[in-house]
């Protein structure tokens, strides 16, 4: 049985009177893929931000490879070690890349920070290969790349530190359908090759169905349903999961009925 790379238990976080995250628990096995779905305000992004360390939890425990993730790190070594556990790729790669740094320099900087005193040239080449970027893209600045290429750079940078877990927060939401398919396939390849655990934060049930093994459905900060992706999507138990599924447009779709069901729930 594969080891769990990520175990989250009883996570809670309130902002004033609002319970943004309420008793959220899940586990992610090595090489596994878990999707957290929900609408705006469901707490899915706050959960991801707590796991990666951008937000603090009021209560709860996070274990990475069986070791507690703990509070804010003390000192540079601890901070770097913590960063190597979990990496995150965001929706808009344009905002997460330095506009003045070339692709190769981005990767060298990350590698130099985490693995000092080595020659990084072969690893840079390997990373570029892994995400399907050619040598021409290596010298380019972010503004000269397409959205899909930029997202490849963001993924390469995350992979550079060999994390246990990669969090993808709506990472394909801003891409065109044909590019989105390329990136989703790329992520599937990387998961096979590396055994990194993927945590997908998304509102898109089609994407979740395509790339995850397990799913957590969140609403108003709480988990309403969780389980194997194909099971939850083919026979949802919670009315909210059913509403989400029915809301996905398809031929013969009845928006009036969905609107009525939404008001009733």
């Amino acid at each position: 049985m594969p080891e769990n790379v990520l175990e989250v238990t009883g996570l809670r976080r309130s902002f004033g009177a609002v319970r943004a995250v309420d008793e959220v628990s899940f586990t992610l096995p090595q090489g596994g893929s878990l999707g957290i779905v929900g609408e705006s305000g469901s707490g899915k992004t706050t959960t991801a931000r707590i796991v990666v360390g951008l937000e603090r939890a009021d209560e709860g425990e996070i274990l990475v490879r069986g070791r507690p993730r703990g509070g804010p790190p003390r000192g540079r070594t601890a901070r770097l070690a913590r960063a190597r556990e979990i990496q995150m790729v965001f929706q808009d790669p344009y905002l997460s890349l330095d506009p003045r740094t070339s692709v190769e320099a981005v990767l060298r900087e990350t590698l130099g920070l985490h693995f000092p005193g080595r020659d990084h040239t072969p690893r840079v080449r390997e990373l570029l290969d892994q995400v399907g970027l050619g040598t021409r893209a290596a010298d380019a600045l972010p503004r000269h790349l397409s959205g899909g290429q930029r997202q490849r750079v963001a993924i390469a940078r995350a992979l550079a530190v060999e994390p246990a877990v990669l969090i993808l927060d709506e990472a394909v939401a801003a891409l065109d359908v044909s590019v989105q398919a390329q990136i989703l396939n790329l992520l599937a390849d990387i998961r096979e090759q590396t055994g990194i655990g993927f945590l997908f934060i998304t509102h898109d049930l089609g994407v979740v169905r395509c790339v995850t093994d397990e799913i957590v459905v969140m609403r108003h900060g709480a988990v309403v349903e969780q389980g194997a992706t194909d099971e939850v999507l083919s026979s949802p138990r919670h009315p909210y999961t059913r509403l989400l599924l029915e809301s996905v447009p398809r031929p013969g779709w009845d928006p009036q009925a969905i609107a009525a069901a939404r008001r009733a729930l």
Partner: protein
Amino acid sequence: MRPTPALDVRGLRVTLPGTARPVLDGVDLTVGAGETVALVGESGSGKSIASRSALRLLPTGGVAEGEVRVAGEDVLTMDAARLRQVRAGTVAMVFQDPCAAVNPLRRIGDFLTEGVTLAGTMSPARAAARAVELLGAVGLDGSVLRKYPGQVSGGMLQRVVIAAALMGDPVLLMADEPTTALDVTSQAEVIAVLATLRERFGTGLLFVTHDLDLAAAISDRVYVMYAGRIAESGPAEALFARPRHPYTAALLASTPRMEGPRGRLAAIDGQPPDLREPLRGCAFAARCPLATEVCDERAPLPSPAPGRPDHTAACHHSDLLEGSAVDA
């Protein structure tokens, strides 16, 4: 005789300085009175430029040739005064982000009525009454009038923007990705509102989107654009069940959806053609599995499917595709 279409675009060609090919290249597009038409394409396909031409909103430095008739009148040649009237009432537009469409410091009531009162088409009192009526039609009550945009949800605000678009009794309502910024359940609500309004007011609706499934679910007819040209057009059902253009077929195959096999998607290799490179043949040839020599040499013209004149595709090899799609 058929009624005058809400929008009739003929041979529209838009060129921009500094590009090697036109951003729109011979676009023909019709939205009948009371018809819902979807215009589908990826970034850079020209779908937004094509739709905005109905308001003569061209990109900076853009030069347009061809005809863009709104309710029979060509907006490309009309004088400024008439154009202002068209923009104030005949054609209305709903954009992706409702928050960007409203002034956050003014009440929703002012936002709804200012267009028609400033254009002088309605007295303030009539405009207020009409605003309440339209808010009712989009499922909101009059109490919203006193609120500020920040006090309502994104879905509600998009419905406010739709109500505002209908204030001037438009012949044509254009919606450019109106639900992309919304959650799926509020998307359903906004689409439900648009569908009801079309039945009630007989407005032609041009729905610009990148979402094929959404286009299939709501529209009578669909146009698929690629690199400034119409690749395929036809009744929504036929186009999705039996696509006649390899680009449409590839787009359908690369969409992650709720039916069909899970796992790896059939991605389209490569990228759309660069605006800086001239195009000789078919724009999709470089990425097309069916492409042959003729595709690089001659741009294909739209041609109808056998026995189905309203389903056209601009592809030299449509007939090959038809067979395989039926088998699959």
